[in-house]
C-alpha cells in the first residue's frame, strides 16, 4: 500500500532528489564552479521527462488518499513543464555565467519551482494543491530577488511577494469554506458536497476567493499589476522561468480546482472568468502597444494571452478546457523561445531591454534574429506557426458556443497583438543597428553552441509543429478524455 503510493510520486521524488543533490554539490565542492550543479539539474530533469514520456513513471490512479492523482492530463503537463524547465536551464546558464550570477542555489530554486509545478499538476486534494503552489511561489520570490545589485529586482520581488501572500491567504480562506462544506480535502468529495448544496452562500464566497487567487497567479486583469514589473525587474534568466513553467501550474490549478473540484458551481465562476478574460485581452494588448521595453511588452502580451486562455476555459465543458490546456502548452514554448532568445543575446554581451537595443540584429546575428522571428510570429498567430492553431482552436470553441461577439472581439485584439509583435520584428530586420562605439557592441562573446542549438530546435519546432499540428492537439484531447479525481 505505502510502497505503491511512494512509486506513484516517482517524478516528484526524482526532481526532489535532484535538487538535494544540487545543494550537496554546493556544500561539498564549493570552490569548484557550479557547473556540476547545473549538470545535475539538467540530468535529473531530462531523466524525469524521459521516464514520464516512456510511461515508467506516474502510473495512473489515485494515491495518498486522494492527495496525488496521476492521470493522462497530469502526465502531459508534467512532461511539458519538464521540457520547459530543461530549455530554461539550457538558455539561462550562459547569461548567468556572463553576469556573475551563477550559483548552485539558482539551480536548486529552479528545480524546486519545477517540483511545485509537478505537485500541482497531479494535486488531488486542496492540501497538496496549496502546498505545491506555495513551493512554486516561494522559489520564484527568491529567484526574482536573487541579484542584489539590481534594485528593480528587489522591488519586483517585494511586490510579487506581498500580493502573492495575499492571494495565498484568500485561497486558504476559500479552502476553509470548502472544507467546512465537504468535511474533506479531497477534490472529489468537495465536488460531491457542492453538487449536494447548490447555491449555498458558502459556495459563492469560496468560488469568489478561489477565482481571485487563481487570477492573480495567472496574471489576469485586474490582478495583473505584478506581471510587467516582475518581467522587467527580475534577472533575464529568471524572467525566462517566470514566463514559462508556472503557467503550466496555473492551468493545472484551473483544471483541478475549478474544472473538477468546483465544476458544480461553473455558473458562478464562469461569469467572473469571462469578465477577467475580456479585461485581460483588452488591457494586456492595448498597454503592450505603448511599451518601448521589450520585457514589459512581453509581460503585457502575456496578460493578453491569459485572456485567450481564460476565454476558452470559461466556456466550460471539456471542449473549452481542452482548448485552454492546448493554448497554455503552446504559449509556454513560444514564450520560452522568445525569452530564450533575449537571454542568449544578453549572454553575448548585448543589451536586450529596449526596442532600440534589438534594432539591426538581423545583420549582427542572422540566426538569432531568425529564431526570435519564429517565436514572435508564433506569438502573434501568423499562420504557418504553432501559435496560429492555438488561437484558431480557441476561436472555433467560442464560435461553437454561439458567442460570435466575443470571437470578433478576440480577433480584433489578436490583430492589435500582431502589430506590436511585428514592430519588434521590424526593428530587428529593417532598422539600422545602433551607432558603434556604444557599450552594446563592445564585447560580443560567442554563445555556447549547445544553447544555440536548443534554441534553434525550440524555434523551428514552433514552425514544424505548426505545419503538422495534429500530434500535440490529439495528445491534449487524449489527456483530457481520461481525467481522474
Amino acid at each position, binding site marked *: 500500500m505505502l510502497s505503491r503510493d511512494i512509486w506513484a510520486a516517482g517524478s516528484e521524488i526524482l526532481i*526532489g532528489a535532484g535538487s538535494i543533490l544540487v545543494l550537496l554539490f554546493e556544500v561539498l565542492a564549493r570552490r569548484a564552479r557550479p557547473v556540476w550543479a547545473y549538470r545535475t539539474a539538467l540530468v535529473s530533469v531530462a531523466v524525469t521527462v524521459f521516464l514520464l514520456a516512456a510511461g515508467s513513471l506516474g502510473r495512473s490512479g489515485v494515491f495518498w488518499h486522494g*492527495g496525488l492523482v496521476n492521470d493522462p492530463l497530469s502526465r502531459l503537463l508534467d512532461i511539458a513543464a519538464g521540457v520547459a524547465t530543461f530549455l530554461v536551464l539550457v538558455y539561462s546558464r550562459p547569461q548567468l555565467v556572463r553576469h556573475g550570477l551563477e550559483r548552485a542555489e539558482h539551480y536548486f*530554486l529552479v528545480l524546486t519551482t519545477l517540483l511545485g509545478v509537478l505537485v500541482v499538476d497531479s494535486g488531488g486534494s486542496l492540501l497538496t494543491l496549496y*502546498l505545491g503552489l506555495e513551493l512554486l511561489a516561494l522559489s520564484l520570490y527568491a529567484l526574482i*530577488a536573487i541579484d542584489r545589485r539590481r534594485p528593480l529586482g528587489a522591488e519586483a520581488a517585494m511586490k510579487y511577494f506581498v500580493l502573492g501572500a495575499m492571494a495565498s491567504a484568500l485561497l486558504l480562506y476559500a479552502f476553509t469554506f470548502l472544507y467546512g462544506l465537504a468535511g474533506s480535502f479531497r477534490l472529489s468529495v468537495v465536488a460531491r458536497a457542492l453538487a449536494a*448544496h447548490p447555491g449555498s452562500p458558502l459556495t459563492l464566497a469560496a468560488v469568489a476567493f478561489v477565482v481571485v487567487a487563481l487570477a492573480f497567479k495567472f496574471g489576469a486583469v485586474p490582478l495583473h499589476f505584478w506581471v510587467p514589473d516582475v518581467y522587467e525587474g527580475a534577472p533575464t534568466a529568471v524572467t525566462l522561468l517566470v514566463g514559462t513553467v508556472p503557467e503550466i501550474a496555473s492551468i493545472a490549478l484551473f483544471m483541478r480546482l475549478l474544472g473538477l473540484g468546483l465544476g458544480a458551481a461553473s455558473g458562478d465562476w464562469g461569469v467572473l472568468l469571462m469578465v477577467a478574460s475580456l479585461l485581460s485581452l483588452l488591457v494586456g494588448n492595448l498597454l503592450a502597444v505603448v511599451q518601448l521595453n521589450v520585457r514589459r511588452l512581453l509581460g503585457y502580451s502575456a496578460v493578453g494571452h491569459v485572456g485567450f486562455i481564460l476565454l476558452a476555459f470559461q466556456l466550460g465543458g471539456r471542449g473549452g478546457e481542452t482548448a485552454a490546456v492546448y493554448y497554455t502548452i503552446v504559449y509556454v514554448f513560444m514564450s520560452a523561445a522568445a525569452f530564450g532568445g533575449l537571454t542568449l543575446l544578453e549572454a553575448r554581451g548585448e543589451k536586450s531591454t529596449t526596442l532600440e537595443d534589438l534594432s539591426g540584429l538581423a545583420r549582427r546575428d542572422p540566426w538569432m534574429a531568425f529564431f526570435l522571428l519564429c517565436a514572435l510570429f508564433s506569438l502573434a498567430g501568423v499562420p504557418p506557426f504553432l501559435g496560429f492553431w492555438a488561437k484558431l482552436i480557441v476561436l472555433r470553441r467560442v464560435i461553437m458556443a454561439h458567442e460570435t461577439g466575443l470571437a470578433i472581439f478576440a480577433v480584433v485584439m489578436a490583430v492589435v497583438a500582431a502589430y506590436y509583435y511585428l514592430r519588434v520584428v521590424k526593428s530587428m530586420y529593417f532598422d539600422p543597428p545602433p551607432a558603434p562605439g556604444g557599450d552594446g557592441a563592445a564585447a560580443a562573446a560567442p554563445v555556447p553552441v549547445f544553447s544555440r542549438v536548443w534554441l534553434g530546435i525550440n524555434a523551428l519546432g514552433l514552425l514544424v509543429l505548426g505545419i503538422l499540428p495534429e500530434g500535440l492537439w490529439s495528445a491534449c484531447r487524449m489527456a483530457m478524455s481520461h481525467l481522474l479525481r
Partner: protein
Amino acid sequence: MTAAHLLVEGVFGFFATVLVISALGVVVARNPVHAALFLILSFFNAAVLWVLLGAEFLGIVLVLVYVGAVMVLLLFVVMMLDIDLVVIRRGFVRHAPLAAVVALLLAFEIGYVFWARHLGLVSLAPPLRPGTLPNTRALGLRLYRDDLYPFEIAGFLLLVGVVAAIVLTLTHREGVRRQDPSAQVRVEPARRIRLVDPFPKGTPGKGGEGG
C-alpha cells in the same frame, strides 16, 4: 456519578479556574514580566485540560513549544525593551468603548458557531474517543503514513525557505578578513613555528664581531 467521574470533574474545575484567573492576570498585571509569567501559567493549565480531553500529544507540544521556546523569546524581548508603563496605560479610557465592542463581537461570533448548522455545513466526524487509540499514535499515523506526501512537500517548502533566506542575505564580500576553520584545522606546527638557531655553527664567537 461515579467517584472517578467526580474526580475528573474536580480536576477539570480546578485547572479551569486557575486558567481563567491566570488569563485575567495576564491582562491585569502591571509589570510586563509578571504578565508573561501569568501567560506561562495559563499555558500549563490549558495543557492539562487538553490532556484531560485525551489530546496528550497536543498538551505536551503546547508546553514544549509555547512555554519552552516562544515564551522564553517573549521574556527576552520584554526584558530588553524599556517599557514605560504610564505611556502604555494612557488612553485606556478612550479606547475602552471600542475594546468593548470588539469583545462583544468576538463573544457573538463564538456563540454563533453553535447555531451555524443551517449554513449547509456537513457535521464532521466526531473526534476520536479518548482511549480508542492513543492521541500521539493517531497523529503519528496520520502524519507519517496517510499524509506522508503533503508532509514531505511541506518539508521541502521549509528547505526552500531556508535556502532563500540564506541566498538573499549571505554575502561573500571580497577583502573581508574572516576565519577559515578548515584552514585553521589543517595547520601544522612546522608551518607556524620556525626554530632558529641564534648562534649557527661556523660564525665567529659569542656576541658577534662588534660585541
